[in-house]
């Protein structure tokens, strides 16, 4: 509405002139220098100019861009409020693909050092002590009593799924079986080394999950058992299995619903809060001739209005409109 904007600019100039001239006498009466009045005029005009309300809308694309900017500004305050809560939920969901079982590949020894470094230098990776009890082996000298070897494995390896299966595979490999017959200290070292090497493919995963552990989880009870209940003790094996089972269920759920809005996005919150309800940047200030309603159909007969729509000002002598409630 370029014509209207030219009208607005002209009208505003007239009003400014009129006001300045009209109050000149009042300024003189109070003994205030004319320069102050001119400063008032200058500053007023400058502020009006920088408001961009009377800048012509040059092209429709820009107008729609303006429109979008406006919208994003409007929603930004609401978004800020929800950001804090939706962020952890979103990030935990983003991590979900990492927990989906990946083919457990036994990579070459070349990559092994990297894995060891990762587990060694990243305290964020939660290592869980696992006690392996070796029954007495009568055939082997000096090993008449049961002995227990404690190794540390990443917590996620104790979960079900590929990682758990992988750990099982590792522990039943001939190298490990052989190592079990060594003296406790040596067996521990060898086993640890072996596990570290074999699990290196999952080190990255556990690291990314561990990062997530630093964020307060607000989307309900834990969707991963990484951070708790991972003591592989015979006593609470049942409990653990149950836990793991639940966790897997939740994981599966999340995977299914990965496309949906994360929890706490507040997409279900209606904007019925009256204080927020009348908040908008597009404002029409006017007078009414007649407001009528039949059933839910409203008709507006307005006059002498100034509108600010998408940052631009418009004026009207009369405006008629309708809307349904």
């Amino acid at each position, binding site marked *: *509405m*370029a*014509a*209207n904007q030219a*009208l607005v600019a002209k*009208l*505003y100039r007239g*009003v400014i002139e*009129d*006001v300045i001239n*009209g*109050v000149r006498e*009042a*300024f003189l009466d*109070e003994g*205030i220098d004319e320069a*102050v009045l001119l400063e*008032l005029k200058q*500053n*007023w005009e400058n*502020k*009006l100019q920088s*408001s961009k309300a009377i800048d012509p809308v040059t092209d429709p694309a820009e107008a729609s861009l303006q*429109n979008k900017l406006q919208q994003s500004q*409007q929603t930004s305050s609401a978004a800020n409020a929800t950001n804090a809560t939706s962020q952890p939920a979103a990030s935990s969901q983003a991590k979900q693909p990492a927990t989906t079982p990946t083919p457990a590949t036994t990579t070459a020894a070349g990559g092994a050092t990297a894995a060891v470094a990762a587990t060694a230098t990243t305290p964020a990776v939660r290592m869980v002590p696992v006690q392996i009890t070796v029954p007495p082996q009568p055939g082997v000298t000096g090993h008449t009593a049961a002995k227990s070897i404690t190794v540390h494995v990443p917590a996620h390896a104790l979960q079900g799924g590929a990682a758990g299966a992988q750990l099982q595979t590792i522990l039943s490999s001939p190298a490990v079986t052989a190592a079990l017959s060594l003296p406790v200290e040596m067996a521990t070292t060898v086993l640890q080394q072996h596990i570290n090497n074999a699990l290196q493919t999952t080190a990255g995963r556990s690291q990314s999950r561990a990062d997530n552990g630093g964020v307060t989880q607000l989307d309900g009870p834990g969707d991963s058992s990484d951070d708790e209940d991972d003591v592989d003790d015979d006593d609470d094996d049942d409990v653990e299995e149950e836990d793991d089972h639940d966790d897997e269920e939740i994981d599966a759920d999340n995977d299914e619903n990965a496309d949906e809005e994360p929890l706490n996005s507040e997409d279900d919150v209606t904007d019925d809060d009256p204080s927020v*309800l*009348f908040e*908008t940047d*597009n*404002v*029409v*200030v*006017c*007078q*009414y001739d007649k*407001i009528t309603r039949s059933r839910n159909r*409203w008709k*507006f007969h*307005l*006059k*002498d209005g*100034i*509108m*600010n*729509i*998408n940052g*631009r*000002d*418009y*004026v*009207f*002598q*009369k*405006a*008629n*409109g*309708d*809307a*349904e*409630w």
Partner: protein
Amino acid sequence: MAYQLYRNTTLGNTLQETLDELIQFGQITPQLALKVLVHFDRTMNNSLALKVKNRLTFKAGKLNTYRFCDNVWTFLLSDVEFRDVSELCKGETVKIVACDGKAVPPTKDD
């Protein structure tokens, strides 16, 4: 007495900001600032009544909320299209604040 509601427009707000600054720097008194605003009210009411001659129509997708209080209507509309002859402008949400147009005939003596 003219309506003060036009103070809540771009022109009115920028004037008030300017006056506030002058008051803060001690260049004018609040009383003088008020005189300026009263003058602005009168000028704005008259200018709109006498100098603006255009008509426009609008259509809203929905009237979300209405309120009638102290003779002032407040509406919140969504998906509003304003038409000025052939030109169009749209607003996602629009608030209309309207005073009674019959209660105060604009003063012609300015």
